């Protein structure tokens, strides 16, 4: 990388940080328990809107993994999610009614909170419909992973988005609060992904899976990106550039081995495809607050009525992380 490009990227990074500082002012504190954060704690950052039904399981899942504190932005929920979160002893909560889209789909808010509270901590930035799976996650808690990454001098950890879906029509099974969404959305595409290297920021751009297959077969390049780097040992100078797909400085994006080996990686089990999606797609479509004016949601609203299911005879049912490792969707790397 030339000096000039390096210089440009530096200013881009500063630009994102400045933006985060401005958008961060849109956040008003609801409950601040951040004084309870201890050095070495693992922090989780999330933005949510009307996710009351998902939150109980979401919080439980990550508490059991070893997350110590949750820092959540509530984007004006009307379903009681805010009150529910405010009551949780390990949640600090901010509220904003401002535009999700203008905050670059929440990234500015996340960058603002990460910059303020994340410095020096391992920070997990996820949506309420994303559950992190990593090698040995059934026997080794998250601090085991972060200690190991620390020991290896690694600052960021890749976890590709794995779209999960039910067998049969998406709305057929009712998801109840507290339930493991993977009981319903138990299926995934085992080998239907394509990656390219982004020459600009060095990250991989991964597409594929059921969304690409069903909703974007005619416009493959518009299919959602699946590459994610949700777990980062944060430094106040870092910035997420686009969702958690990529960061600056760009060294953080080199979560893959380019020399012919495998590095350790996990997956974000994306449980978007539950019965809750139909109502959400309609609402989001009306608000136009999502990526590329809800292009994805428009496809869902259309696609869900046209295509009753995402399941194929070659879909695989989720068992455990070892299955995902054997399929080559994630890797143990040298973590043995």
């Amino acid at each position, binding site marked *: 990388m030339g000096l000039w490009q390096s210089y440009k990227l530096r200013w881009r990074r500063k630009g994102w940080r400045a933006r985060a500082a401005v958008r961060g002012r849109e956040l008003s504190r609801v409950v601040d328990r951040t004084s309870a954060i201890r050095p070495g704690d693992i922090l989780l950052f999330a933005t949510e809107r009307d996710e009351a039904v998902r939150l109980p399981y979401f919080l439980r899942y990550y508490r059991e993994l070893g997350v110590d504190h949750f820092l959540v932005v509530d984007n004006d929920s009307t379903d009681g999610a805010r009150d529910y979160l405010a009551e949780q002893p390990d949640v600090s909560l901010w509220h904003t009614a401002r535009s999700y889209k203008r905050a670059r789909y929440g990234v500015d808010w996340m960058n603002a909170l990460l910059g303020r509270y994340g410095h020096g901590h391992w920070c997990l930035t996820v949506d309420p419909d994303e559950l992190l799976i990593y090698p040995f996650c059934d026997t080794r808690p998250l601090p085991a992973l972060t200690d190991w990454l620390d020991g*290896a001098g690694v600052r960021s950890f890749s976890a590709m988005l794995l779209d999960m879906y039910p067998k049969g029509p998406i709305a057929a099974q009712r998801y109840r609060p507290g339930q493991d969404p993977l009981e319903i959305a138990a299926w995934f595409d085992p080998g*239907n992904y394509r990656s390219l290297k982004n020459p600009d920021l060095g990250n991989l751009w991964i597409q594929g899976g059921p969304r690409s297959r069903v909703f974007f077969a005619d416009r*493959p390049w518009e299919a959602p990106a699946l590459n994610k780097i949700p777990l980062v040992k944060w430094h106040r100078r870092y910035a997420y550039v686009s969702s958690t797909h990529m960061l600056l400085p760009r060294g953080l994006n080199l979560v893959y081995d380019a020399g012919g080996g*495998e590095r350790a990686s996990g997956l974000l089990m994306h449980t978007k495809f539950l019965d809750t999606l139909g109502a959400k797609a309609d609402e989001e479509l009306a608000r136009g607050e999502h990526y590329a004016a809800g292009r994805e949601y428009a496809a869902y609203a259309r696609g869900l009525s046209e295509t009753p299911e995402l399941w194929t005879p070659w879909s695989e049912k989720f068992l455990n992380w070892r299955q995902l490792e054997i399929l080559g969707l994630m890797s143990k790397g040298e973590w043995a």
Partner: protein
Amino acid sequence: MTARLGVILLVHTAFDRAEQVARHWARAGCPVVIHVDRAVPRARHDAFARALSDEARIVFSRRFRCEWGTWSLVAATQAAAETLLSRFPDVGHVYLASGACLPIRPVEELIDYLAARPETDFIESATTAEVPWTVGGLHEERFTLAFPFAWKRQRRLFDAYVELQRRIGRRREMPDGLVPHMGSQWWCLTRETLAAILRDPNRAAHDRFFRRVWIPDESYFQTLARRHARRIESRSLTVSKFDYQGRPHIFYDDHLTLLRRSRCFVARKIWPGADRLYDAFLTEAAGRAGRAEPDPARIDRLFAKGAERRTRARPGLWMQSSFPAEGRETSVTAAPYTLLHGFAELFEGVEAWLTASTGARVHGHLFAPERAEFADGATVIEGALTDSAALRDANPKAFLTSLIWNTRGRHQCFQFGPRDDQSLNWTIAQDPNARIAAVTGAWAVPLFRSGRPAAEVRAEAAHLQAVEADHLKVLRSPWTAARIRVWSMAEVVATPAQALRSVLSDMGAPEAAELEMPRLVDLEGFGAFLQELKNQGMHPYLTGDFPTGPASQRAAPRPPRKPYVVREP
């Protein structure tokens, strides 16, 4: 009374675990001398010492500020060893361990094991020429150069000083005729050997020399034991494995069974949060193995596999954390596969015939412009890969590598021709997994059979021939790695069995003396069709020569040439 086992414990973090382990050693009757890193705040140290003050067999030694790779670790060990030897005169063997070491067999068994070998020193000690585990390229230079700078804090100075010494050709001499040896820093020495090392009349000279050696805790005792020991068992009783960067592997709860079965005495490093390991191994009856010898082979294999995967990915796998740069891949594809160029046009039912005779999965034209023609007309196959041409063309290489990865275990075969997407021609020709069998000019057969007049198909024929010629250039280049065979259509028509047999053998089918062949398509009038193309001003040279007259009047064809084998790996 038998000699006792004494333990030196080097501690700098995870004090609750260190306390547990120290008490465990002491409970078995072992005196323990603990060295706490000077970098640990006094308050923390004092609290730790106070917590252990009820145990008379646990004492603390003079503190040094320890830094990885430097003399400080040896100094700390020396001081602790002196304390141990002078405070506990009945100690026979001294075991060097850290706070992250966990006894995984009853300490009594270790005591018995050592009591049965009262004169043996257990210390891994090999000459520098024989050890493969050095990191950073520093081998013999660990001894011949001086290392006054800390690798972790002062990397630039460290590197610059190494470089400078190399330039001026510095060679430090070993004092006292010592021969440099290296090995694991976790040893178990007899009192006699340890005392001899510490009381060596030349110790001042030794210490002065090793003070500037790189990572002396892996060489000081290992070198001097060679001078003073009566009997060296060159192995460590502590099972400790290093990854490819030279960092110790860490044990977690899920290693419990593995550790139990290893019958090793002590393991490191244990993750401080591994509650199950600490609970299991620090209870009295844990891991009883009688007089069995330690056997760390299974642990070796597990970690060796991890290191292997870190440097060599699973062949043919492209994923989020393994995306090799051009030319760095273990293998582009996961398994052998066959590309058949022109066969489907020339032989009737060749797909079904190949499936029956090889057991392979035989697809149609996977890269056809309309859709990926999966075998049996499937629209979706393994991996949930679909037949969409748009998705495939968004990244043809990912399509191919996914297809081969998803179906590994069964040979895949597909048809190819100049109508298909050509973007992978180089990728496939350079892939050692690819077997390519090509009949040139076969694109003319569907045009001929379409019944359309030559004037109408002329432009299309010219286009297909040009595309195929480009592909042939790739196949005939010296940069290919696939197994490639090329015949002209005329040759295959003359002796079809030969081409088909080659395809079968490339796909791994057993040699059969009698072979039921698929039928050639009816080529009655094909020569005339080619002539008509020629008359239209197009020159179909890739088909080879076909006589223009009716088949019945044809002269016997010339004896065919041998198949043109570009490369036979």
